[in-house]
């Protein structure tokens, strides 16, 4: 076993059949922004990848022209994670497509326990049109509840197919099950990779862009802060933990008051991670943070206030 130099960020994608996982995965693979994404299909259902993306197929592994790959992993999580960590070339992002029944929390726990993995979040996609049907089947109720309540990012898909009334009912239901996460309305699985993956590797935050990306700029807003300040770990944890759910993702790097140790911080949903950076790649003792939210929620104001008040 060869340990990785930096942990592999892992995202769990959960949702029922027909909720739009396949479309979303294809969208993310098409907009990978230079990152090598390894998609593991934790399912016995096929995950059809758009043909024009595929460069070659070798057994269970599909290689894409842009450096991404997809791999079917059968039913055994041990084998799947073992294979992902051995995968050559080493991926930048691991995206696990959890089957309709897999408990996303259980899969996410692998990334929290394994030093060579880092949890990037649980993304749950629900179908605005048929979510209520699922919640009425007693055999499925607890599975669906688990998927929604464990999510750090909730995507309400197929919003173009339902009335405003239906959409509001779905949103209320989601809020009942998980009030820490604000659902994002999407159509056809289109969501910026930033939201799903965060921004690049945790320890590599030197190139922060704040410009809007692709055609998502109309609904999403980025916020960034670069500062010479030093931050006390626990105080920052408090500040970031109390950010409202309208801040969909928050991450950054900072130096603590002794100025010798550097840390990365990452928040998605209610999940906050602080990890020490062993060998910071940035020489100057500065800190920087970036966040993403919905434009309508004016996250910049919230964040400016939070960082002025506490620090």
């Amino acid at each position, binding site marked *: *076993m060869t340990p990785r130099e930096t942990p592999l960020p892992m995202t769990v994608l959960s949702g029922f059949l027909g909720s739009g996982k396949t479309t979303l995965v294809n969208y993310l693979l098409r907009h990978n922004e230079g990152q090598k994404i390894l998609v593991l299909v934790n399912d016995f*259902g*096929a995950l059809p990848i758009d043909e024009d993306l595929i460069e070659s197929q070798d057994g269970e592994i599909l290689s894409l022209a842009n450096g991404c790959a997809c791999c*079917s992993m059968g*039913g055994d999580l041990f084998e799947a994670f073992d294979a992902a960590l051995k995968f050559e070339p080493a991926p930048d992002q691991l995206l696990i497509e959890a089957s309709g*029944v897999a408990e996303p*929390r259980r899969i996410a726990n692998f990334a929290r326990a*394994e030093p060579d993995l880092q949890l990037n979040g649980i993304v749950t996609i629900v179908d605005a049109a048929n979510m209520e049907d699922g919640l009425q089947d007693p*055999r499925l109720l607890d599975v669906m509840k688990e998927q929604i309540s464990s999510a750090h990012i909730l995507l309400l898909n197929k919003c173009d197919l339902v009335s405003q009334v239906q959409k509001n009912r779905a949103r209320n239901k989601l809020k009942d099950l998980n009030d820490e996460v604000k659902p994002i309305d999407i159509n056809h699985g289109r969501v910026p990779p930033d939201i799903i993956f965060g921004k690049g590797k945790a320890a590599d935050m030197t190139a922060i862009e704040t410009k809007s990306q692709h055609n998502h700029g109309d609904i999403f807003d980025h916020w960034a802060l670069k500062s010479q300040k030093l931050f006390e770990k626990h105080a920052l944890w408090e500040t970031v933990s109390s950010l409202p759910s309208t801040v969909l993702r928050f991450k950054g790097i900072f130096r603590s008051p002794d100025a010798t140790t550097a840390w990365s911080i990452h928040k998605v949903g209610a999940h906050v991670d602080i990890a020490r950076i062993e060998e910071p790649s940035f020489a100057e003792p500065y800190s920087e943070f970036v966040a993403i939210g919905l434009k309508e929620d004016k996250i910049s104001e919230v964040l400016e206030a939070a960082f002025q008040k506490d620090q």
Partner: protein
Amino acid sequence: MSGTTVFKAKKIITMNPVQPEATHVAIRDGRILAAGTEQELAGWGDHNLDTSFEDKILMPGFVEGHCHLMAGGIWQFTYVGYQDRIDPDGKHWPGVKSLEEVLERLKEAEAKLGPEEPLVAWGFDPIFLMARRLDKNDLDAVSSDRPIAVVHSNFHLMTVNSASLKLANYVADMGVDGIAIGEDGTPNGELQEMAAMFPIMRRLGINLRELGRSRSSIIDFGKVCNRVGVTTAADLINDLPDEDVAEMTSITSEDSYPIRLLSMLNALAQPVDETRDRALELAHHSTDKLRLGGVKIVTDGSIQGFTARIRWPGHFNGAPNGIWNILPDQLNELVSVLNDAGVQMHIHTNGDEAIEAALDALEIAKAKNNRPDLRHVLQHCQMADRAQFRKMNRLGVCANLFANHLYYFGDKHYELTIGPDRATRMDACQSALDFGVTFTIHSDAPVTPMAPLFTAWCAVNRQTESGRVLGEYEKITVDEALEAITLGAASTLQMDHEVGSVEVGKWADFAVLEDDPQKIAPESLKDVKVWGTVLAGEKFQTP
């Protein structure tokens, strides 16, 4: 023309109602030519009379309908279970009855290891050693620098020492589910579920799936079977890649390999259509001693792990409902596709909600396309109620009941998991008989030890570890239990025309017993001694 051999026995229990008992059996070309008295057999011409079994009892070779090849390979680790077990080479491992005995055994094993080898043990069961939990301090006393991992009997937990914890960087409370924290606020060495165990297993090279794949494991598995009179055994889940099929074919075709092996394809490891195509293709690779083509579908988890899907009113202790490994709607589709294609299904269902979902899926499939040529089997089927047995009868579905659970986990089911009402009707053999459901009973080895006569004892006595009788009504007779572990199991494997009874034309596969199970007291059935087996007329005395 090849010769005819006649075995003379003290008694042959045939499982053939036309001729329940015989003293002689004639064998030609590995098959049973005739059974009866010496005079009755004389008409078949010259024969060699073999009297080596004249003071022994012959039965049809036992058929284990649900176990795993890992039952052989697991013995490369040190056994630290509570009950006595026998390893493939016949070494008797007394159960370790206290934490002190566990540590003593670990120290002995540790002393024999090379400098770089980790110490891995298996079979540990804290349910039986409740005085206190095993923790890292205990194991640190065995070795402070060699990594140690003690895998619990359910394979869902392990306890490790500080050297192992350090390897995975488990040195502080990281708030991760499954990494148990001790009073001092640091991990105490107990790791629960695969996510928390994975970093250790990966670093110590413990790969449970590999345990069932290697040549030595498959050979050891044959020894495990031979020791308990089993001549046909079903490995109840396997990914069956080509290279493994080639290896299994080569090993089983050797004359010295003592069993007929069936291996069921994992139906959830690839998309539905691929499962169907692969199962049909595998069926063509079957030989006399390796049978392929059936599939395994895992629907829920286990009752003792609180992961079975159970109906109202849920768990006795209020634990939340268990997990689906496949959603009911997807199960409906999978079952229909496989049934249409003529693929036999073994469907793992522990809880009654999972049983209901499987029966609904089979009902949909059979209403469309009855396929009376196929016998689908509910595996474990532990919580089925009588209405579900009636439905199995209507649909022609078989059951393989987990009788060993009554002994090993019965007390826990009564007190903790599902409560008295449902625990007393678990693994309901009498209900299966009442409604004419073809059934067998199994060990799920290595989850519980393989030994069909012990499994039969469980079904006859329904006695738990503490001595409680779990449901008087569901007890069956010794003869019914003996049929379940021979012809019953053969039927669930669609091999009842080849094995399972001593009848003309069937394979000359026998269990050779030192005692007569029909004469011994029913409560001593498990103590019947096994001499070994005969496979296709060849003797395999247990070494």
